[in-house]
């Protein structure tokens, strides 16, 4: 086993398999049957077609952060309903119903931890919470994470996974774009690194603010990334979109991101990038984790 493989094979999602789990998993992309255990061990990437399935917030943290080093911040922060918004359902009721599903208080988990020894402030989206949409809570958690990084002189990593701004918080959601971008300006002025990780999907107000402001921007393979959603574009221009449009490779080829990084190499690459940016040697590897 090479030094590189050693590091790479370490990452896992921290999922305990239970007896109720299906043994087989059918990939929705290639229709192949694969062992669920194998799929999970492969970090929810299809072993046949390499399709990167979406991770939830906890899995993402487990993938990136050294074991037992993550300290969540602002865990109790929750959305209020400043506009008393009501569509077919009240926003308040929507929030309550989603919170009852055990998805946390809002669409983001943020906190401090170590990424292969590097002190980082990490923000990860919880896509299952209203499509990872950004309202005041998401914007505030990101802003506070950036402010903590400035205080501690550490790095910021944001893993985006969001359909964009949350309509139910109206103008406040739009203003989170400005708020987070202002905070990133301060971070940048302090000479501290921010790496933006784009996963499937990263669109709308999230992509049009902090997601596209990384000193370094990387994306997972096959992720949908763009300003407007493909359906909106199709309706506007009245034509079919080309294959691969707005996917990671498309962005790479149009000069919009730095790298496309497979999930298995993500932690190593981020650690290496931080070491290189800060002109530090690669930190020692931690103890090998198991599932």
């Amino acid at each position, binding site marked *: 086993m090479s030094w590189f493989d050693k590091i790479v094979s370490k990452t896992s999602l921290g999922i305990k398999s239970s007896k109720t789990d299906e043994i087989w998993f059918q990939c929705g992309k290639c229709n192949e049957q694969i062992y669920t255990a194998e799929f999970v061990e492969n970090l929810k990437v299809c072993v046949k077609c390499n399709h990167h399935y979406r991770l939830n917030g906890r899995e993402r943290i487990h993938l990136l952060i050294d074991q037992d080093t993550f300290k969540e911040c602002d865990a109790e922060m929750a959305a209020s309903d400043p506009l008393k918004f009501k569509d077919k359902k009240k926003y308040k009721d929507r929030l309550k119903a989603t919170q009852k599903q055990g998805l946390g208080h809002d669409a983001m988990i943020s906190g401090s931890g170590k990424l292969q020894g590097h002190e980082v402030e990490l923000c990860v989206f919880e896509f299952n919470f209203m499509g990872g949409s950004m309202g005041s809570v998401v914007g505030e958690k990101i802003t506070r994470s950036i402010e903590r990084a400035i205080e501690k002189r550490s790095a910021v990593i944001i893993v985006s996974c969001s359909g964009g701004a949350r309509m139910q918080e*109206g103008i406040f959601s*739009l203003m989170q774009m400005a708020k987070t971008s202002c905070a990133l*300006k301060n971070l940048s002025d302090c000479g501290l690194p921010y790496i933006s990780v784009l996963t499937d999907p990263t669109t709308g107000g999230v992509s049009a603010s902090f997601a596209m402001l990384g000193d370094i921007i990387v994306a997972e393979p096959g992720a949908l990334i*763009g300003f407007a959603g493909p359906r909106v574009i199709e309706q*506007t221009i009245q034509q079919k979109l*080309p294959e691969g449009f707005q996917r990671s490779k498309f962005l790479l080829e149009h000069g919009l991101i730095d790298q496309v990084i497979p999930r298995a190499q993500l932690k190593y690459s981020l650690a290496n990038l931080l070491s290189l940016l800060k002109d530090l040697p690669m930190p020692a590897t931690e103890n090998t984790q198991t599932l």
Partner: protein
Amino acid sequence: MVQILDFEKELFAEESQIRELVSLSHMYDSVGDITEEITKRTKKLRRMKREVFAGLDGWQMTRVARHPDRPHMIDYVNHVFKDFQELHGDRRGGYGPSIVGGLAKFDDRSVMVIGQQKGRTAEEKLRRNFGMSQPSGYRKALRLMELAEKFRLPIITLIDTPGAYPGIDAEEKGQSEAIAYNLFKMSGLKTPIIVMIIGEGGSGGALALGVGDRILMLEHSVYSVISPEGCASILWDDKTKVSQAAKALCLTAKELLELNVIDQIVKEPLGGAHRNHRRAAAFVRRALRANFKIIANHSTEEMLELRHEKFRRMGEFTEGEK
């Protein structure tokens, strides 16, 4: 041709009746004294206008904000500023015709004025892409803002756009990055920025010119995270629910002032800016003067601190029991 909105119909009817009375009074001396009648009816018309426009809901307001006769960015440039010199191009291969920008004199000082232009004639609308900018427009805007910073000239942005253009080429050229980078850079520009929403403040495409020290909205403009149509079709699954969507979004100047998102509402002539461009421009001029005075009280450092504070406090949430 004048476009009349449904809630304006009565007003127009009354107006034309008064006009008839006036011409009648000129034609014959024998009509008797109808001056009194005319004065009475004119007063009534003013009252009607005031009532109709004070009671507009979110969707009606959106339609006033989008009214084709409403003064556009270039109209304000012509009426409010002098010696305008338009500056073109993003210097990155893009022309950016949906956004107009250039140097001008406001009163006796040089300023950089930038804003989206929707276009008035069919030809201009196409050329301007209805005010929906490509990345090149935002990049041109930023280039001009940095030019202003270099020469310590204040920046005035006039916002009027349905949103950033959603198209293949826009995505290829990095629409998201163009908007994001403007937010990032505008937050640190070392020169005063006065933002004024003059018509439609459509989402990220509006915000891309919307980070500044003073955020003003014309009385009948709107500012929203998504259009009522977009919101209705996503949240109601029903394109016809625009009125409910507009109401839910709280997109009027009055609501946004109450929510502390904007600093000031700029008055419009009675019946809306689309009925009198010159008077609308006079109100805009007065508002700009007043806001320049407010800004003049701060050093550059204080100004940037206040700008950051303004956006830092945006949002509402709860913090749990702790």
